[in-house]
């Protein structure tokens, strides 16, 4: 590494004799922490680990990945797609002899969560696309997750079966009934081991509570209730009760022609079971407290960054629309993603974000074409790392960006099959906004706007990330020495 090489020479200049190996190692270590920041993100060297999905360029619509989510331990990784299917990957147990890499993620279970439906009364086609998956914390041997399409939320139980009963009296092993006259002895069936089978079964179906399209689900820290949000309403459910839900937010105007704002995302606070937030298409976030009233139409806090009126344009409102909101693990901060930036808000300060990171500012001078090709309406998600020190979000050309909140440095990486040798460190990418393009830079006009990374997820404890391109899932890990 250039930085380390430099520091050896500096040391040599100060002393007559060559430094001992220990002294050099100590200096390398201490200088590294000065430059990269203690625990800073950019001393992470990201390496390709795995890629899932088909190689061919002709992408079937059903294969478009629509959501990615790690479970609470990080052992399981779930994806949902436009075809209504869920695929769950499980991390292999760590191999003690292979100390240079963590366990790989292999297919654990796959099932059809939602099917296409047609509402004949309203002439509405209901897509089977999985909008969100949220895991429940594990309480027993089985795993539970909530998956939702535009209208219906389902609670799925994923359980393992590794034994089966054998030795029935009235049935053969293949299930056919025996002729009762041939049964001359009586035996007790016993459980014998079998090949592991992972079964997914729908345990609850929460339907008919949303007139508009569900964009978010969020499980409460009480682990008993959860919320579901559509464009105009938010409902509160109990995980055990499917025939009833409580409406807690309703922003539908009496006259629909007065509609100016829709709900874009909602999430429960990670620790406070009475608190949740929802974001809007106008760039505001409202924090509500369910103890204040049954219907939380009046917010407890309103987070909004004042806009400079002189900067206002036709595009201002569209690009300020928040596509995702996520609380930090600590619960002290929340992050929002709008079209061009990621903002970190301190829950104690409503009038402006505490940090703003530009994702792809060079697109500001391309807004006209992005409006024409509808890309301006793309909904990017964002996520925190386990320690809340780094945030990550996607961009175009299969680029994704990470921002280290401590060192204030950022990096752009690419999810591409070209870098797919395990333990190859990913090379940072740079977009040239204008003027002379340096070697290895890519110009804005060469970006592929059909290659969008909308969904990313960070392992809750480790430096393992899952990045979804249109139809492939990439897993990257930090380089372990």
């Amino acid at each position, binding site marked *: 590494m250039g930085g380390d090489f430099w520091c050896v020479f500096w040391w040599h200049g100060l002393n007559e004799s060559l430094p001992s190996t220990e002294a050099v190692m100590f200096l390398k270590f201490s200088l590294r922490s000065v430059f990269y920041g203690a625990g800073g993100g950019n001393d992470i060297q990201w390496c390709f680990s795995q890629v899932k999905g088909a190689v061919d360029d002709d992408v079937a619509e059903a294969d478009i990945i629509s959501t990615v989510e790690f479970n609470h331990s990080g052992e399981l990784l779930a994806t949902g*797609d436009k075809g209504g299917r869920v695929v769950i990957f499980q991390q292999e147990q760590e191999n003690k002899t292979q100390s240079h890499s963590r366990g790989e993620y292999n297919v654990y279970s796959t099932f059809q969560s939602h099917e296409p439906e*047609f509402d004949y009364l309203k002439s509405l086609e209901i897509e089977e696309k999985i909008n969100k998956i949220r895991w429940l914390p594990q309480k027993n041997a089985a795993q539970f997750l909530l998956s939702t399409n535009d209208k219906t939320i389902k609670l799925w139980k994923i359980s393992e079966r590794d034994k089966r009963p054998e030795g029935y009296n009235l049935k053969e092993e293949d299930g056919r009934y025996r002729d009762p006259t041939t049964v001359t002895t009586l035996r007790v069936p016993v459980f014998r081991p079998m090949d592991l089978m992972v079964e997914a079964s729908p345990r609850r179906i929460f339907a008919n509570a949303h007139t508009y399209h569900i964009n978010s689900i969020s499980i409460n820290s009480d682990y008993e209730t959860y919320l579901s949000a559509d464009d105009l309403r938010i409902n509160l459910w109990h995980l055990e009760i499917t025939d009833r839900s409580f409406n807690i937010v309703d922003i539908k105007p009496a006259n629909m022609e007065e509609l100016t704002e*829709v709900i874009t995302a909602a999430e429960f606070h990670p620790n406070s079971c009475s608190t949740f937030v929802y974001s809007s298409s106008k760039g505001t976030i409202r924090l509500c407290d369910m103890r204040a009233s049954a219907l939380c139409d009046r917010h407890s806090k309103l987070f909004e960054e004042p806009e400079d009126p002189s900067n206002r*344009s036709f595009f201002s409102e569209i690009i300020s629309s928040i596509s995702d909101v996520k609380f930090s693990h600590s619960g002290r901060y929340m992050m929002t993603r709008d079209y061009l930036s990621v903002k970190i808000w301190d829950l104690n300060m409503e009038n402006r974000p505490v940090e703003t990171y530009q994702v792809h500012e060079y697109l500001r001078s391309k807004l006209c074409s992005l409006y024409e090709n509808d890309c301006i309406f793309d909904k990017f998600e964002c996520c925190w790392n386990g320690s809340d020190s780094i945030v990550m979000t996607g961009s175009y050309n299969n680029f994704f960006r990470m921002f280290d909140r401590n060192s204030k440095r950022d990096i752009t990486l690419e999810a591409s099959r070209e870098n797919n040798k395990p333990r190859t460190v990913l090379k940072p990418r740079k977009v040239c906004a204008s003027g002379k393009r340096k070697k290895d830079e890519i110009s804005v006009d060469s970006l592929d706007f059909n290659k969008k990374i909308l969904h990313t997820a960070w392992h809750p404890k480790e430096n393992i990330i899952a990045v979804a391109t249109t139809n492939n899932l990439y897993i990257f890990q930090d380089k372990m020495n």
Partner: protein
Amino acid sequence: PKCFPGAQNPAEDLEDTQEKDKSIPPERAEEAKLKAKYPNLGQKPGGSDFLMKRLQKGQKYFDSGDYNMAKAKMKNKQLPSAGPDKNLVTGDHIPTPQDLPQRKSSLVTSKLAG
């Protein structure tokens, strides 16, 4: 020491922005471009068009009376068919059974699991 990977070069970006600021901010320039192409954009008063369109996603309309009358009128001629975007009903086009996307049959396993 060489520049750290991923660091934006703020001096360069600022220069570009300042150059543009001398004339028009980039967003306004883009707005002017759009208004030049679509002069009627944003003229309609009242609620936001694009919000309404978003709420109506998935809505399909079919009126059997319209459909049969149109068929009778046309007699031997073909009914105007849907354009590339089958979800938009424009002009004389009346949704026909041929236009409706085929109901999907049972899906195969995801390629992610392959």
